[in-house]
């Protein structure tokens, strides 16, 4: 494993380890990177103390990059995505989008929530149209664009269904179409396929990869599944548990389209997992202790 810069400039070999911490304030980075997180921390205070969910996150994301963040549950992945979507502010530190401090909430950063947040009072097509409607785009164009993206996720037949009539994988695809219809600058995805069965997940991996190859959007994909991260990402970064810090990064240089069963992929995933194991154990332990306390 060869080291490379945080931007992923030198991809040497099948895979390279990338240190995450670096001097971010060097100006060229600001211009080159889609997104920069500079010393970002987020903590929650409550009556029984302060919980540091994220601590000193430094990270640069390149335009068009498919970046995966892996971490055990509770390590601050959703918190990180909320910050990047501008739905929440860091306790300290700065997030730069296209070289400017990020507005709150940020227009071009669309988040696919862990719980999806599809609107049950709207049909599938109306859900996909929602963001366009908020932009004031006329009914006809809206409809056409929604139909295009529904076709892209193979849901044309269900455009008039309501959300409760769909299966889990279909809901997931509606969320994808709803996000892509806005043609976002950055697509943020929060464990989108965690609740799906293996076959559906394989299918959606393929679809997402295909769409990404077609559109080359910057995608920031969060998961607790290492193999999924290696399957999808150009770069995989580990997030540690409590406080959440970026630990180490790997460039995945396997050819696309990739396959989950590919031995090379499995091997890479195993190596990443080795790195992560300590963190996962820490998470399980914390969970276990919490249960003890509540008994």
């Amino acid at each position, binding site marked *: 494993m060869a080291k490379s810069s945080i931007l992923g400039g030198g991809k040497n070999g099948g895979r390279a380890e990338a240190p995450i911490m670096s001097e971010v304030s060097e100006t060229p980075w600001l211009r080159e990177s889609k997104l920069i997180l500079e010393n970002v921390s987020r903590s929650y205070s409550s009556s029984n103390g302060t919980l540091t969910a994220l601590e000193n996150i430094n990270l640069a994301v390149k335009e068009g990059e498919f970046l995966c963040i892996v971490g055990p549950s509770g390590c601050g992945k959703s918190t990180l995505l*909320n910050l990047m*979507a501008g*739905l929440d502010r860091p306790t300290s530190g700065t997030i730069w989008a296209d070289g400017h401090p990020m507005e709150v*909430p940020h*227009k071009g*950063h*669309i*988040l696919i*929530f862990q*719980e*999806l*947040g*599809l*609107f*049950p*009072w*709207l049909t599938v097509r109306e859900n996909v149209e*929602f*963001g366009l*409607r*908020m*932009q004031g785009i006329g009914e006809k164009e809206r409809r056409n664009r929604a139909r295009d993206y529904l076709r892209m996720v193979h849901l044309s037949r269900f455009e008039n269904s*309501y959300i*409760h*009539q769909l299966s889990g994988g279909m809901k997931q695809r509606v969320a994808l179409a*709803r996000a892509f219809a*806005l043609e976002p600058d950055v697509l943020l995805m929060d464990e989108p396929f965690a609740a799906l069965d293996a076959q559906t997940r394989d299918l959606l991996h393929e679809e997402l990869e295909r769409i990404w190859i077609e559109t080359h959007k910057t995608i920031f994909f969060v998961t607790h599944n290492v193999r999924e991260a290696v399957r999808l990402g150009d770069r995989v970064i580990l997030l540690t548990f409590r406080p959440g810090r970026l630990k180490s990064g790997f460039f995945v240089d396997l050819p696309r389209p990739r396959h989950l069963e590919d031995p090379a992929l499995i091997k890479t995933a195993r190596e990443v997992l080795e790195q992560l194991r300590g963190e996962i154990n820490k998470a399980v332990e914390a969970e276990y202790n919490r249960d003890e306390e509540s008994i």
Partner: protein
Amino acid sequence: MRKAFRQLAFYIFLIGSWQLIASLRIWPPYLLPSPGNVLGALRDGLTDQTFLVATGISMRRIALGYGLSVLLGISLGLLLATNRFLEESLGGFVLSLQSLPSICWLPLAVLWFGLTETAILFVVLMGSLLAVTISTEMGIRHVPRIYLQAGRNLGARGPRLFWHVLLPASLPHLVSGLKQGWAFAWRSLISGEMIFVSLGLGHLLMMGRDLNDMSQVVAVMILIMALGQVVDHVLFGRLEHSIRHKWGIVSFR
């Protein structure tokens, strides 16, 4: 189908027994009219248009008063749900006001507005305002945060966030308040109309009493009941059906 059949059977039984008791002549017809008498009164009232005119007047009043209370109630509920200071101060007051039977507002309304249309509208408004306010507030408070987050992320701000996300998301909750408000408003209206001369259905009831015309009284009662049912079915039945269709299984609280 079977349910409709049973209901039909029940009503036939009810009217049959009524006819039977009336024909036994235990009480004179001016105390207990027969179904035929009432039907006659209903037909007379409809042909000489007094019932239709009264219905028109009452419906106009309720549409205005109730419509206004829905607008005000939803706005007030939104303010209470989003403003902590208002909630802590006004919130409890609204709850205690709701325990007041709405007809209690009539003397106040008469003193403020005189024996006018405004006074009646005020009573109707107060009848349903608080129910709508409280259910809106509760509805908005129960909207899962994720819908708001998603709405904001997709570019909805301020009034649009309220109109396109908050309101539809709280509708299943809101419907029960709207329905309750409607029932309160309808009661307030009829009671109000009974207390001062103002045409309308309530007035027609009192006219029947003044003329010692029990058939008319019962006929108007049936009319009031029927109108209430029709609105309940047409307006709220449809609304509930549409929500159930869209959301899947929803319990209306």
